[in-house]
């Protein structure tokens, strides 16, 4: 049989062998720019509005006033805290999707301390320390239960941590009527609204968000050093890559799993404390509000580098807040909250997609002799 097709493949994909640091970031920036262009086209197609103006509205909605700016700092801090908490678990390939529950029990613990210890007259700093400790312990316990089960019974951690979220939610529903205020509201309400005992700071506008940011940045730096330079961080990396290698290297895999998940849960618990003592001063179903899951995106996009998580968390909170601003400003132009979600989706899609171009090179063969490299 004779075959005489002389067609060459038009697109050729080959793996890149290492890429310069600046080049990979250039690709990422280009991806974000491109995603904004696509968003602009979409906005124009849907509403006929000037996309630049729309983006401006978003920016104004997030940074326009000091209060808005500080809200952005506050929410970024909480999201970053959860993402940093997820880092050791994910680096170990322990799929902790229970940050939601770990944060919630942390919040419940903090609220319990505020309510029951708030009128004992102890200094506020002492109460705050007790609250923070209680949150960390509660989160840690919530994290360690699935870890023990995984280490000794080899259960599936994804299901287990997910189910722990619902148990945490039921706990909250149990406590809500006990802590109900005002009576009949079926809500916990603002705790210590008069005495402001157990509040991170009385100055809600500036001091509170900055204190939160400060605490979370310290945790971020510590976690970076822990994962990168400590012996335990090294063990986490080895266990994550291959349990057989870990056993070969005389690493006690069970211990590492239990220890790392305790840390992971504890930091997520701390996020619950920050949320209750700093942002909300109450506890409700919205305390976690899905942030335990959004933090997974943050952690993954940052490839578990806690410093990169700062940027990603800030971007995601910006998009979220910008979307709300859009929806309220242009409610009669077809631009609703949903459009904002689409924009968020498009931008994340491009950021994720850019990783392909960082890892692979694409060559186009257009006719004879012409070669174009993308």
């Amino acid at each position, binding site marked *: *049989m*004779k*075959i*005489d*097709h*002389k*067609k*060459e*493949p038009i697109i*050729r994909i*080959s*793996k*890149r*062998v*290492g890429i310069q640091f600046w080049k990979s970031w250039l690709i990422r920036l280009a991806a974000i720019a491109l995603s904004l262009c696509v968003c602009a086209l979409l906005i124009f197609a849907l509403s006929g509005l000037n996309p630049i103006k729309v983006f401006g509205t978003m920016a104004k909605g997030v940074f326009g006033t000091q209060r808005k700016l500080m809200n952005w700092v506050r929410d970024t801090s909480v999201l970053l805290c959860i993402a940093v908490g997820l880092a050791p678990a994910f680096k170990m390939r322990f799929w902790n999707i229970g940050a939601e529950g770990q944060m919630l029990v942390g919040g419940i613990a903090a609220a319990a301390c505020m309510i029951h210890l708030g009128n004992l007259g102890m200094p506020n700093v002492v109460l705050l320390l007790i609250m923070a400790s209680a949150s960390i312990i509660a989160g840690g316990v919530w994290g360690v239960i699935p870890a023990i089960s995984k280490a000794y019974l080899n259960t599936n951690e994804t299901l287990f941590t997910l189910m722990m979220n619902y148990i945490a939610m039921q706990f909250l529903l149990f406590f809500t009527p006990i802590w109900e205020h005002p009576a009949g509201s079926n809500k916990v309400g603002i705790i210590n609204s008069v005495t402001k005992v157990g509040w991170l700071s009385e100055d809600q506008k500036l001091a509170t968000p900055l204190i939160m940011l400060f605490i979370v940045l310290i945790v971020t730096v510590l976690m970076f050093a822990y994962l990168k*330079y*400590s*012996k*335990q*961080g*090294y*063990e986490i*990396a*080895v266990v994550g*890559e*291959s349990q*057989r*290698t870990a*056993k*070969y*290297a*005389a*690493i*006690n895999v069970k211990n590492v799993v239990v220890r790392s998940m305790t840390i992971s849960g504890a930091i997520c618990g701390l996020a619950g404390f920050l949320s209750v003592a700093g942002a909300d001063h109450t506890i409700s179903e919205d305390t976690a509000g899905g942030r335990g899951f959004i933090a997974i995106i943050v952690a993954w996009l940052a490839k578990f580098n806690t410093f990169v998580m700062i940027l990603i968390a800030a971007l995601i909170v910006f998009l979220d807040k910008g979307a709300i601003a859009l929806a309220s400003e242009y409610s009669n132009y077809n631009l609703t909250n949903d459009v904002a979600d689409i924009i968020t989706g498009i931008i994340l899609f491009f950021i994720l997609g850019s990783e392909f171009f960082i890892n692979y*090179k694409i060559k186009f063969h257009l006719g004879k002799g012409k070669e174009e490299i993308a």
Partner: protein
Amino acid sequence: MTNEVAVQMVDITKTFGPVVANNKVNLTIYRGEILSLLGENGSGKTTLMNMLSGIYFPDSGSVFVDGVPVTIRSPKDAFNLHIGMIHQHFKLVDVLTAAENIILGLNEKAFIDLKDVRKQVAQICDRYGFVVNPDKKVYDMSVSEKQTLEIVKVLYRGADILILDEPTAVLTPQETQKLFHVMRNMKDDGKSIIIITHKLHEVLEISDRVAVLRKGEYIGDIATQLTSAQELTDMMVGRAVSLNIDRPQCEIKRECLSVEHLSVIDADGVKKLKDVSFTAYGGEVLGIAGISGSGQKELLEAIAGLQFIQQGGSILYSSAEGEQPTQLVGRTPRDIKRMGVRLAFVPEDRLGMGLVGSMDLTDNMLLRSYKDGASPFANRANPRNLAKTVVEELEVVTPSISTPVRKLSGGNVQKVLVGREIASQPSLLMSAYAVRGLDINTSYTIYRLMNEQKMRGAAVIYVGEDLDVLLELCDRILVLCAGEVSGLVDGRNTTKEEVGLMMMHLPNKEVEA
């Protein structure tokens, strides 16, 4: 062999990023010949053949089949040109039968006539002397059966040009002879066969002609009758290489490890080792021979504390002459390390067990020593120096010591692993298939390192598959068959046949090969 050209590859170039795998390679294949493609690791043999079988597409150059220029864009194109490749890693579906695997992907008709397939398969088998049971499931097959099936599959699809990528790497000497027998039959039938291999004695035995590649360049070809192992090695390496493996006599001899009544049952309840007893001495290389899967892996892992050992087994380790021996049974790797047992272990699965693929050289050196010191932070200064030393002394080819080891070639990965293990000055060094997939140069480096450790007084346990090497390198050879010891012979006065026979049979009873 005729002078009719079957395939001609002209000026073929293929690059992977900055790596030039093939640089303007020219290769001619004649009808009815067996051509050996010879070259060290990374010399571009497999890449070149992958382009012929449609897995890769060349950056430039042309291919002629029967004198007609062709473009091979996929394995399907290759099959249409009657070119078929048998890969090193079999491409079979485990849960399907032999016949089902043969017709997989052919879907020419809506209904498959398996009866017809069986008949055709039987015809092919008769013609060339294969034995294939068309209704046997692949997961029930031995490695050799799977390979036979791969060849039959390719023939069923009408291949006239067969490419075999390291087909003998997984076979026993007896199985290799069977394979050579059918290869000769196919050749007599006018088929062209290209065989990629590292083993020179096989090249000399089976092929008509040898083509040599070195670092992606075509060095030349030579009729097998006119050449020798020495000449081929020199062509392959690019300089004169001694092919003798040293077996120095060591003055030190002390009992290092005494294994008695060792039995291991794996997680599925299958008995992997049965009542194994032997002694390893410092200052000698103890070879372990056996068909792959005869319990070699489990034996080494049991000593390293990675296997659960059945009641009644004993592994006694003595660090020095006259000292109280330590019992290793029931100890974890952590315990063994803490007790001060200087044990080095080069496992079979280099990247899945011995090293962490995504980590760089420094962090892989750290694997054995990260716990040293009281600080909560790991000390990377010593591992970094060790990495540099290993790269320098063992001539590891790597862009830098901060390159992930996964990106290194097989031989370099092994050098990193062996380098780390011997850096601990072990008194017991265990290695499993230490030269598997490595080229001659690197293999000889590994043999030299084993001998160095032996001369230091360490007990070296060397699990190997190449009997020629075992016979030349080892002082004594322990032969395993189906998890039991079937013999212990002196490496200086035994023969390949004797060891080969022990691999297949236990002293008292017959075991099906």
